[in-house]
C-alpha cells in the first residue's frame, strides 16, 4: 500500500488497484468523519481476507475497525443499530455467498425503516461484499446475486469496475442517506491499476459510465464483465468493423435510465452482459427499461449474455459459465446482423 497513511504533498494521485482503492476510500472517509466505523469478520487485525481494510486497524484502532464474532445477521443488524445511533457503519460481508444470514436484516429492516417510519428513521449504512467468479474459489465463494438486492425497494446497489470508481462510489455510498449494497468484483480486485486522486471525491450513485463510444450496438454491463465486454467490442471493431458502445451501469439500483435509453436511441441494438444467472437477472430489467422508453428505435431483439440458469459450477468449469469475450462477441455480431 502506498502513501495513503501519510499523504504526500508532491503527488495528488496514487496508482491503485481496485481493492487498494476500496481501502483508500475507507481510509479517506474515516479520516474526515469520525462517525464512520468498519465492522466485519477478519477486517481488523487481519486487514480483511482480500486486504481491503489493510492497515486501518493500526491507523484507527479496534474501536473503529471492529473484528466481530462470526455472524452476518449480527453484523448487519448491529450496523443498523449503529446507524440509528448516529454513526456511519460500513459492514463487510466476507463473500457475497455468505450474506444470506443477514438477508432478513437487510430486506425487512435496513431497506424499509425509512418508509415504515414515514421518514422519521433512516439507515445510512454500507454493506460491502466481494462478489463474482473467476478466481478459482471454493463453492459458495463465486456467486453474483445482485438481482436479489436490486429487487428490494429502499436499497441502493452499487458495483464499480475501475479503481477510480471504487473509491468515488464508496465515498458517495458512505455519505448516502440510504443503505447501500456495495458489490466489489473480486476477479478484478488486482487486475489493473490506475491513478486515483488522494483527495476525497464522490462518483454519484446515479450515473452510468460510457466506457467506449460506438454507434452500431450497445453493450450494457457492470463489474468484472466490463473488461471482456470491452475486449469483445475491440475485437468486433477490428475484425468486422462493428462499432460498439459499452455502458457500465455502475449503480445497479436505481438505474440510470437516461443514459441507458440515450445509448439505445443511438444504436437501436442492445446486448446485456452479466455473470449472474440469466433468468430474472438484472438484464431483464435493463431490457424492459429500453422497451418501455425506446421501442420505436429498436432494430433487433435485445439479447443477454449471462451465466446459465444453474448453480455456479466448481472452478474446473467456471470459465464455461462466465461470459467470456468469445460469447459476447458472438452475440454482438448476431445482433448487429439482425
Amino acid at each position: 500500500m502506498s502513501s495513503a497513511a501519510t499523504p504526500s504533498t508532491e503527488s495528488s494521485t496514487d496508482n491503485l488497484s481496485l481493492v487498494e482503492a476500496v481501502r483508500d476510500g475507507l481510509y479517506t472517509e474515516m479520516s474526515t468523519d469520525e462517525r464512520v466505523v468498519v465492522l466485519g469478520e477478519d477486517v481488523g487485525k487481519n486487514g480483511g481476507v482480500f486486504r481491503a481494510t489493510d492497515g486501518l486497524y493500526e491507523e484507527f484502532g479496534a474501536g473503529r475497525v471492529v473484528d466481530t464474532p462470526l455472524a452476518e445477521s449480527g453484523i448487519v443488524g448491529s450496523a443498523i443499530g449503529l446507524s440509528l445511533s448516529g454513526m456511519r457503519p460500513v459492514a463487510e460481508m466476507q463473500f457475497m455467498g455468505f450474506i444470506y444470514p443477514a438477508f432478513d436484516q437487510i430486506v425487512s429492516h435496513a431497506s424499509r425503516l425509512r418508509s415504515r417510519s414515514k421518514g422519521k428513521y433512516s439507515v445510512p449504512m454500507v454493506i460491502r461484499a466481494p462478489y463474482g467468479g473467476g478466481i478459482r474459489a471454493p463453492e459458495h465463494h463465486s456467486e453474483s446475486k445482485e438481482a436479489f438486492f436490486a429487487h428490494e425497494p429502499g436499497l441502493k446497489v452499487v458495483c464499480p469496475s475501475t479503481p477510480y470508481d471504487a473509491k468515488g462510489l464508496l465515498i458517495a455510498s458512505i455519505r448516502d442517506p440510504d443503505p447501500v449494497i456495495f458489490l466489489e468484483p473480486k476477479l478484478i480486485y488486482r487486475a489493473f491499476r490506475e491513478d486515483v486522486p488522494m483527495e476525497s471525491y464522490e462518483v454519484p450513485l446515479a450515473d452510468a459510465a460510457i466506457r467506449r463510444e460506438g454507434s452500431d450496438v450497445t453493450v450494457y454491463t457492470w463489474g468484472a464483465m466490463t473488461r471482456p465486454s470491452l475486449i469483445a467490442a475491440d475485437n468486433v471493431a477490428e475484425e468486422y468493423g462493428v462499432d460498439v458502445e459499452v455502458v457500465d451501469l455502475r449503480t445497479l439500483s436505481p438505474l440510470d435510465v437516461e443514459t441507458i435509453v440515450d445509448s439505445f436511441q443511438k444504436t437501436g441494438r442492445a446486448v446485456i452482459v452479466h455473470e449472474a444467472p440469466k433468468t430474472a437477472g438484472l438484464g431483464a430489467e435493463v431490457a424492459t427499461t429500453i422497451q418501455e422508453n425506446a421501442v420505436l428505435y429498436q432494430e433487433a431483439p435485445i439479447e443477454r449474455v449471462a451465466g446459465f440458469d444453474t448453480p455456479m459450477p466448481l472452478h474446473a468449469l467456471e470459465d464455461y459459465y462466465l461470459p467470456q469475450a468469445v460469447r459476447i462477441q458472438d452475440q454482438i455480431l448476431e445482433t448487429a446482423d439482425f
Partner: protein
Amino acid sequence: MSAQKEAERSVNSDPTTITDDPIQILDEDGNVLPNAEVPDLSEGQLLSMYEDIKLARKFDQRAISLQRQGRVATYAPMTGQEGTQVATSYALDDCDWLFPTYREHAAKYVHGMSLESLLQPLRGYRDGYAIPDDVNVMPEYIPIATQLPQAMGMAWGHKKQGRTDEAVLCHFGDGATSEGDFHEGLNFAGVFDVPAVFVCNNNQWAISVPRERQTASETIAQKARAYGLEGVRVDGLDPLAMYEVTREALRKAKNPTDDERRPTLIEAVQYRYGAHTTADDPSVYREEDEAEPWRQKDPLDRLQHYLETEGILDEEREAEIDDRIETQLGDAVDAAENASADPDEIFEHVYDEMPDRLREQRDELNALREKYGDDAFSEVLE
C-alpha cells in the same frame, strides 16, 4: 465411562463451574492417566486409528504442497485436529451419518469416502460430493453453521421413523457458535430430543478471530446447558478421550436411559496449527510460538507413545504403515489428477428433469464450443 470422567462430567453440567479441565485419558506425553480407563478397542483397531491419524497428517502435508504447486486450489488444513476427526468417526457405526465442514477431510475418509474424492473438489470437480450409496456422509458444509439445523432434522426424521439406531454426528468450529443456526439447531435438538451428537472443533481461531473474541462464555460446552443438552469438554488432542466420549454420546443418542436426553454437545478443545486455508497468512494476526504448548500435546505423538508403551507399535510396524500411506497418497493424487469434467455437467442435476430453457442454454454453449473451440473459453480474465 470411568468414575473419574463421570465426576468431571457432572462438574461440567454446572454452569457456574466454568474453569473445568477437558476430559483426558492420555496425559500430554501419551501415558494413561491414573484412574482413567482406556476404551475397549482391540490392538488392531488402535493400530488402525493410529495409521489413519498419520495418514491424515501426511494427506494434509501433501495437499498443502499440491496447492503451492498450483495443482489444487484453496485447501483448509487440519493438522492438529486429526485426532478428533479420526476418533469421532471411529466412534460411528456405519449406519450413522456424518455432517462435515470443509476441514473434516479425515473424518470423511474414516467414515467411508476415498482419498481421491477428498481431492476432487480442490481441483474444481464436483465428483467429490457425489457420495457413494453405502457411505453416510453429507457433502461438506461451507456456509458456517448451516449444517446444525439440518443434522438435527435428519436425526429428528430418524426418530420419527423409529430408526434411532441411526444417529447423526455434526461437526462445526468455534466460529460457528456465533451464528444463529448454531443456536437454532441446538434448541430444536433439545426440544425434539433427537439422536444427534454435535462436535464443536474449538481450534481457538476463526480465521483471525481468537476464541475469546468469539464468545464471552468461558467455555463452549456450557452453551449446551441453555438448550437443555449435556455439554462435555474434551481434550481434542487426545484421540482415546475423544473416542470414548463420542462413543458414549452416540450410545445415549440411540439408547438413552429414562433420565437421559439424547443429544450432546461435545467441545473438542484443540488448536489449528496452520492457516485457516492456504489463502490465509496467520503470521499477520498471531504469534508463531503460541502453537508450541499445543504441539507438546500432539495427538499423533501421544498415540504413538501409548502404542509403543503397550508394545503394540514397533519400528517394523511403523515402517509398514509409512509404506502403505505413501502408496495410498500417491494413488489418490494420480487418480484425482487424471479426472476431467465435461462442460455438460454444468447443466446436469439442477432439477430431476432438465427444463427446456436449460437444455437450450446447454445447446447454445455447445454450439459456441464447436464454432470457436474450447481454447476460446479458457481466457484468464484477470
